[in-house]
């Protein structure tokens, strides 16, 4: 597969590892923001291959994991309405809300369908004009433009039964929130490659500028991740924080202007509630008034009961990078992928799921 296989070359990987070993003289802690990076790192066994001076810590880049209970509870309430078909990406299905999950609602008769694209939800709306089709908009800046494009398509087709419940969130504000909290010392950030494809590497300039730490934007193949680690180690050793684009085949300084325009045409920035981070200003996306008729939040006011989080669940701390998954007392005991307590264990990009699946906890 072109532009995948070449970036998995084991020999080049070994050489990058040797390069990192040669450069790294002091301990560094790097946060990979994105859940996709966490899983790639585990899948290829990169943690074991890196020298012990380099520690990787997972960040909040799992859109399913950071969805607040209140938002999920609302989505489940909407799904229970007899006139609603809720279309969602697969891994939202099992996330436990305060009173159950979408999967449980589905088993109890709610019309919940897994889709792989917002376009599939549009198709369901076209084929079932008598149903109110709500698409659950979860995802960061990689996904939000695709949802915006779908809304514009719905507008063009004058669909009257298509809605989006936007839970979309923005990544730079969350990164700021983690650094401002000052709970975890970070030497550098491995920047989310596909988010940055949209928002542009310039969007991370605030990291060296305001916080004095480097950011290396990385793709998702082993060579991409290792290159970004090498660049970060180098920047720290030299005391030269900067934004380094190691994913230049996909990332440009300005990002994808078409995608950004479409996203900004349909969505406006608002405050948002993040699991683990609480309310983060200007970190969420809501539909602009011009697109109010597609806004599920407006069209389907629901009042789920008060949000209830499992008291011992430490997903919030995991998401802020304060602890690693095995430090949560529920990890691997009360909380497993088949019986998850929190979203970090059940989401495809959750840190706890990665640690559990790839057996990292047994290697300590």
């Amino acid at each position, binding site marked *: *597969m*072109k*532009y*995948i296989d*070449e*970036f998995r070359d*084991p020999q*080049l990987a*070994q*050489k*990058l*590892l*040797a*390069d990192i*070993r*040669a450069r790294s003289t002091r301990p560094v802690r790097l946060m990979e923001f*994105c*859940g*996709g*990076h966490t899983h790639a790192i585990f899948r290829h*066994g990169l943690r*074991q*291959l890196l020298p012990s001076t380099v520690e990787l810590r997972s960040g909040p*880049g799992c859109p*399913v994991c950071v969805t607040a209970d209140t938002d999920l509870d609302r989505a489940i309430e909407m799904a229970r309405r007899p006139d609603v078909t809720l279309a969602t*990406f697969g891994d939202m299905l099992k996330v436990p809300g305060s009173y159950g999950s979408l999967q449980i609602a589905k088993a109890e008769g709610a019309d919940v369908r897994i889709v*792989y*694209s*917002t*376009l*599939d939800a549009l198709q369901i709306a076209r084929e079932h004009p008598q149903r109110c089709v709500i698409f659950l908009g*979860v*995802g*960061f800046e*990689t*996904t939000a*433009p*695709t949802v915006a*494009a779908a809304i514009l*398509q719905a507008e063009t087709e004058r669909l009257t039964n298509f809605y989006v419940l936007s839970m979309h969130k923005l990544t730079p504000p969350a990164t700021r929130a983690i650094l401002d909290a000052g709970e975890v010392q970070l030497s550098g950030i491995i920047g*989310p*490659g*596909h*988010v940055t*494809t*949209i928002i542009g590497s310039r969007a991370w300039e605030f990291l060296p500028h305001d916080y004095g730490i480097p950011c290396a934007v990385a793709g*998702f193949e082993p*060579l991409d991740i290792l*290159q970004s680690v090498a660049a970060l180690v180098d920047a720290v050793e030299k005391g030269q924080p900067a934004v380094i684009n*190691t994913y*230049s*085949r*996909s990332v*440009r300084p300005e990002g*994808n202007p*078409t*995608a950004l325009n*479409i996203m900004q045409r349909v969505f406006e920035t608002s405050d948002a509630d993040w699991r683990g981070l609480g309310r983060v200003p200007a970190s969420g996306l809501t539909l602009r008034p011009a697109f109010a008729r597609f806004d599920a939040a407006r069209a389907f006011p629901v009042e789920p009961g008060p949000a209830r989080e499992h008291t011992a669940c430490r997903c919030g701390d995991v998401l802020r990078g304060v602890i690693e998954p095995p430090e949560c007392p529920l990890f691997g005991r009360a909380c497993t992928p088949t019986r998850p307590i929190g979203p970090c264990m059940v989401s*495809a990009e959750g840190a706890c799921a990665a640690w559990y699946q790839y057996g990292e906890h047994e*290697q300590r």
Partner: protein
Amino acid sequence: MCLAIPALIKSVEGTNAIAEIGGVTRLVSIALTPEARVGSYVLVHTGFAINVVDEQEAHETLKLLAELAAFDPEAAPAASGEHEVH
């Protein structure tokens, strides 16, 4: 949710295109990448092309990595890279 993979555009019709990866073809929207052409490689995320791959940059990156390896005096000699699970 970060999942996006490079695919080759085989045909275009309006804002839709057929993209191919490893012999598997898929319908994608190019609404976010109107500049995509037949023969472009695009990154596909949830049914949409989110960017056109800069092939020149891809080759440059690989070339850089290969050269880094060749000139780095500290590079480990073709080690098998065995690492114990510990």
